[in-house]
């Protein structure tokens, strides 16, 4: 990920125009949305995932993308992205495509724009990669007169290590090691270290 001179200058300034984009690699066409209003065109060559360009649909509302951590040391992370207040139109489309999002790659990125004329300063910077586990739709019903019923779509996106199995806890006794790897002598003397033992060097 590299920022060009214009983008660096924009990031250094006190006012920025920034688009946040999310892309789900569904087939035949990806679900491409951004956190703004109306359609947003990503030109040819400005997105690693959209070599022929792509129109990103505006969410209409201004939902939040949850904060995500940098993937250091491969720690697994899951984020849930929710879009509330969707119309019946979008809800119906989401329900009909529910099965299509499972195990599809989900990427989140930003694009920087000139604050003068909203021209794109550089390519989209994709920052978060994950796999979509599931999409759910829900209705939060009004609880009192005057309230409104809200329709919510949520997708759960895990990192690449989310699906890995977590090892069971184990002991380093010789019996356990023999059960795991018969004949291995690596844990023969761990019993002597069950209490604090001082090793005198260099005696063997």
């Amino acid at each position, binding site marked *: 990920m590299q920022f060009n001179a214009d983008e660096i200058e924009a990031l250094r300034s006190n006012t920025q125009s920034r688009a946040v984009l999310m892309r789900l690699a569904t087939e035949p066409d990806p679900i491409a949305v951004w956190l703004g209003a109306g359609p947003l065109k990503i030109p040819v060559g400005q997105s690693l995932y959209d070599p022929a360009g792509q129109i990103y649909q505006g969410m209409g509302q*201004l939902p939040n993308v949850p904060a995500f951590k940098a993937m250091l040391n491969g720690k697994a992370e899951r984020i849930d992205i929710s879009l509330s207040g969707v119309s019946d139109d979008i809800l119906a489309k989401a329900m009909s495509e529910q099965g299509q999002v499972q195990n599809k790659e989900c990427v989140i990125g930003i694009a920087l724009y000139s604050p003068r004329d909203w021209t794109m300063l550089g390519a989209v910077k994709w920052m978060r990669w994950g796999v979509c586990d599931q999409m759910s739709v829900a209705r939060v019903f009004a609880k009192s007169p005057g309230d409104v019923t809200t329709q919510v779509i949520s997708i759960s996106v895990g990192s690449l290590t989310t699906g890995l199995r977590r090892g069971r806890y184990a002991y380093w006794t010789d019996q356990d090691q023999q059960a795991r790897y018969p004949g291995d002598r690596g844990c023969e003397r761990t019993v002597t270290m069950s209490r604090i033992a001082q090793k005198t060097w260099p005696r063997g």
Partner: protein
Amino acid sequence: MTLLAPSDAIVAPRCLLRGETSSWNLVSGSMSPGQTASGGFPFATFPGGGLWQAAHSSLALKGDDAIRAFRAIRSQAKSAVVPIIVYRNDGMLAPWPVVNGRRVTTYGSLPHSDDSFFSDDSGYVQPVISASVVSAADVNATSITIRFDYGGPPRGGESFSLFHASQGWRLYEIGFVTDNGNGTYMISFTPWLRDAVAAGDAVEFDAPRCTMRMADPSSMNMALPNYKLARPDASFIEYFFTAA
């Protein structure tokens, strides 16, 4: 299931949405991380200008016809699901042509060539200001060049509408104007274009309008104190059609 299209939008008559106050504003999001170590206050917004929000207060609905029409529009809107074409009634700010020192804002209702009208006494109506796009512009463009055949020139601050095949009627507000000296003007505006425009596309200054929806299912609630005069409020927010 067939998604809603621009042809599904219902039209709110201009005379219904005239109230004591009318506010049209672009709503956008912003974010700020607070003060930096160097003393700056970074501030980021989403590009494009946001989406239109219209709020009308104390609409004057006098008589049975007006009240019924308002109710019918509300019913057709299906609790804020169906889009509505809402006019921005700011005609005093349009670049009307001036003839003999007076602004020409309407031709009235025009008859047939034999001076007769339709059976309901209505005639032909056409816009006064005639303007068109000179050269094509892509979606998300923030400026276009236009030509006036009648009316103009714009000065900045006027609103106009464009009809887009995929997104219907969209409202734009002029920021600044550059006179190209050859009868054309380069205008910059917000929000950015909702869809591409082609050379020759008509630019609507007479009756700018926007495709919107009720802000929420209760935003056209109405009380009838004496069944003769109602003064409801109404609020709308810009509506976007979903790509198939």
